[in-house]
C-alpha cells in the first residue's frame, strides 16, 4: 500500500446466496483511494457499485457475502493497516471504523432518518458514540455541524422531526451526521440521485466545499457522468460486477477506451452536441439479468468491438495503457498504449 493511499480494495468478490445457489455480484474489483481525493464508481443500476461501497463498511445484507479479497484501510494518524474483511462481524473493530473513520451517506434522504426521532437526536448519535462527549457538548457540536452544512436556524432544526425537513435539507443533515466525527473517508452512495436538479447542484457544491475544508477522501457512487465530471478526480467504470476501465477523470473523458465507456459518454447530452443537432446514441440492448450472466467478458453481447471466439471464451485482463489508465478489453484498439504528446504532433 502506497503511503498516500488511505483505502485499497483488492480483488474483491461478493456473492449472493439464494436457495443454496450462489450468484456472483462483484467479481475481482480492485481500486485505490488516495487521501483527500474523490474516486467515482460509475455504472448502471445493478452493476455492483452500491454493493461494493456497502462492503467497505461491512453493511451487506444477510444474503450477500464477501467470498474473497481484501479491503485495506489506513486509519488516520496510524501506520497500521487494517484489513476490514478480517474484522469480526458487528464487532468492536468495525464499529469503531463506522461513522468515525469511514462515514457513509445514502441515496434516499427521505428514508435515511427514523420518523420518530428528532434530527438532532439522530445526527448527534455518532458524536455521542465515538467522541464520548456530554450531551450538552454533543448538541453544541451537532448544531455547529448543521450550521456548516447550510441548515438555517440549526438550533431549532436540532429539535425538529424529519418530516418537517425537505429532501435537500435531509441530505444536508445526513452529510452533517456523516462528517461530524471528521472521518478520513466518506462513502457517498448516489447522494444526489433522489434530489431535484437545482438541489443536486447545491449538495454537490456543499460536498466539494467540505472536502476542501475537512480534507476527507470520497468514494462517490453514481450513474451520472455529469456529476462525475463535476466532483471526481478518478473514475472507475463498472459493468456487471467488474471494473472495465479506470483512471483519472480527465483522461477517461478525453480518451475513453472500453466500448462500454465510449458508449456511456456518447449517451450523455452535451451542449456542443445539441448545437450540431447530433442525436444521443443509447447503448444497444440492456443489462442481462443476474441469472443469465454472459460468459467471458460480460459486455460482449452488447459490444460493437465484439471478437467472435475470444470475448465469450474468457474474461479479459486489466491492461495498463498509461501510468494510471487501465482497461479490461480484448480489442487491440482499446488497449493500444496512449499516444504521447509528441507522437500526436507528428
Amino acid at each position, binding site marked *: 500500500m502506497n503511503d498516500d493511499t488511505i483505502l485499497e480494495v483488492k480483488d474483491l468478490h461478493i456473492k449472493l446466496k*439464494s436457495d443454496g445457489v450462489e450468484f456472483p455480484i462483484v467479481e475481482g474489483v480492485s481500486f485505490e483511494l488516495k487521501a483527500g481525493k474523490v474516486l467515482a464508481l460509475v455504472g448502471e443500476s445493478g452493476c455492483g457499485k452500491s454493493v461494493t461501497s456497502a462492503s467497505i463498511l461491512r453493511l451487506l445484507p444477510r444474503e450477500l457475502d464477501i467470498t474473497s479479497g481484501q479491503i485495506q484501510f489506513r486509519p488516520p494518524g496510524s501506520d497500521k493497516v487494517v484489513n476490514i474483511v478480517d474484522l469480526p462481524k458487528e464487532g468492536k473493530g468495525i464499529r469503531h471504523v463506522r461513522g468515525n473513520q469511514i462515514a457513509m451517506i445514502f441515496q434516499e434522504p427521505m428514508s435515511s432518518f427514523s420518523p420518530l426521532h428528532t434530527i438532532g437526536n439522530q445526527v448527534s448519535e455518532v458524536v455521542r458514540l465515538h467522541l464520548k462527549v456530554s450531551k450538552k457538548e454533543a448538541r453544541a457540536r451537532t448544531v455547529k455541524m448543521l450550521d456548516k452544512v447550510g441548515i438555517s436556524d440549526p438550533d431549532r432544526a436540532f429539535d425538529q422531526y424529519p418530516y418537517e425537513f425537505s429532501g435537500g435539507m435531509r441530505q444536508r443533515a445526513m452529510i452533517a451526521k456523516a462528517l461530524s466525527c471528521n472521518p478520513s473517508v466518506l462513502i457517498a452512495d448516489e447522494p444526489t440521485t433522489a434530489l431535484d436538479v437545482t438541489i443536486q447542484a447545491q449538495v454537490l457544491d456543499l460536498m466539494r466545499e467540505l472536502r476542501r475544508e475537512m480534507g476527507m477522501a470520497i468514494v462517490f457512487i453514481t450513474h451520472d457522468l455529469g456529476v462525475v465530471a463535476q466532483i471526481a478526480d478518478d473514475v472507475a467504470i463498472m459493468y456487471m460486477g467488474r471494473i472495465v476501465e479506470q483512471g483519472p477523470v480527465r483522461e477517461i473523458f478525453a480518451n475513453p477506451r472500453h466500448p462500454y465507456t465510449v458508449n456511456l459518454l456518447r449517451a450523455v447530452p452535451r451542449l456542443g452536441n445539441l448545437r450540431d443537432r447530433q442525436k444521443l446514441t443509447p447503448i444497444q440492448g440492456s443489462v442481462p439479468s443476474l*441469472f443469465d450472466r454472459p460468459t467471458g467478458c460480460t459486455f460482449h453481447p452488447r459490444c460493437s468491438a465484439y471478437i467472435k471466439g475470444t470475448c465469450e471464451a474468457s474474461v479479459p485482463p486489466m491492461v495498463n495503457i498509461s501510468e494510471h489508465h487501465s482497461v479490461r478489453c480484448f480489442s487491440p484498439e482499446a488497449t493500444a498504449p496512449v499516444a504521447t504528446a509528441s507522437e500526436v504532433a507528428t
Partner: protein
Amino acid sequence: MTSPDTTIPTTKEQRNKRRPEMASQWQLMWWKFKKHYLAMVGVIALSVLVFLAVFAGIISPDVPKARNNAYLSGPPMGIHFLDAQGDFHLRPFVYARTTKRDPVTLRKIAVVDTDTHWPIEFFVRGGSYKFWGLFKTDIHLFGASGGFIHLFGTDSLGRDVFARTLYATRVSLSIGLVGVTLAFVIGAMMGGIAGYFGGVADNVIMRLIEFIRSIPTLPLWLALSAALPRDWSSFQVYLAITLILALVGWTHLARTVRSKLLALREEDFTLAAKLSGCSNSRIILRHLLPSFMSYMIVDVTIAFPEILLAETSLSFLGLGLREPVESWGVLLFAAQNVRTLAHTPWLLIPGLFVVIAVLAFNFIGDGARDAADPYSK
C-alpha cells in the same frame, strides 16, 4: 443499497417454466402460494375436513342419533392388527366389549374382552340415513361385525362421538361458509359504496364500522342470540345465528374493499372507463373488483375462523345452536362440566377439530397474504 430479489427461480428449467412477465396475476399468486409450505398443509387439512363433512353419512359407522345402551360413556376403541397373543391379522379388528356391573357403584361398565375379536368390515349396513338428502340408504363405509365400533368413544347417552363429530363438522363448516358469504356480500357492498362514492357515504360507513368494532364482539353476539325467541325451530336458529355472525363480521372486508377502492379510484384505467361511458356498477364490477379480489380472499381466510370460533363459543354456552342439531360447539357443550370431563375426556375430541380447522385457515391466510401481492418480494 441493492437488496436482491431472492425469490427468482434458480435453475434453468424453472426459469423457462416461470416467466413472470407472461403469467397472469392468478398464476403468479398460485406460484407464490405453493411455495408457502404451511399454507399447503392448511389446504390439505381443510380438504380432509371438507371431505369428512361432505361424506359424513357414509363414513360414520352409524347415524349420530343412534344410542348404544351397551356402551354408555365408553372410551374410544382402538383398531388392532395384532391380537393379545401377538398374532397378526390381515383384517383389522376391535376387541369385544362385555357389560358388567361395577360391584361398588353398581353402575354398568363395559369391559374389554381381548379373547373375542370384532373384525372390521367394509360397506356394511347400519342405521338408515338420507344421502345428501337425496335418497335413503343404510350403507356405511365400515363397521365391526358381531358388535359395534366407536372410534372416538360414546357420550353419556351411548351416541357415537365419531359420527356426531363428522356431522358436526358438516354443520359448523357450513355455518362458517354461509356466514362468510353473507359477511362478504355485506362487506363488499358497504366497502364498495364507501370507497367508490367517498364523501358522506364514506364517512357514515366508516363511523359505523368503527362503532361496531368498538363493541366487544362476544357479549354482543351472546346478547343478540339470547334475544332470539325460544320457540324457534333449530333451522330458524341456525339461520339467525349465521346472520348475527355475519352482521358483526363484515367490517374487516368492508375496510379492505374501501381502502383498495380509494386507491384504485385515482388510477388512470378507472378514469378511462369512466370517459368511455361505463356505468358505476360496471366500473366497480368489471374493472375494480378484479384488482382487489386477492385482498378480499385474504380477508375471507381471516373472517372464516372468526365466525367458526364465534359459533363454537355461542353453542358451547348454550346460546347458539342446540340439540338435536350437531355442531362442534353443541358437542363441546356436553363437556362443560369438569367432573364429566374427568370421566369422559374424549368428549373434547370435537375441540381438536375446531383447532385443526382454525389452524388450517390461519395457515392458508398467511400464504394468501404473501401471495396476494405477487410482485412483492
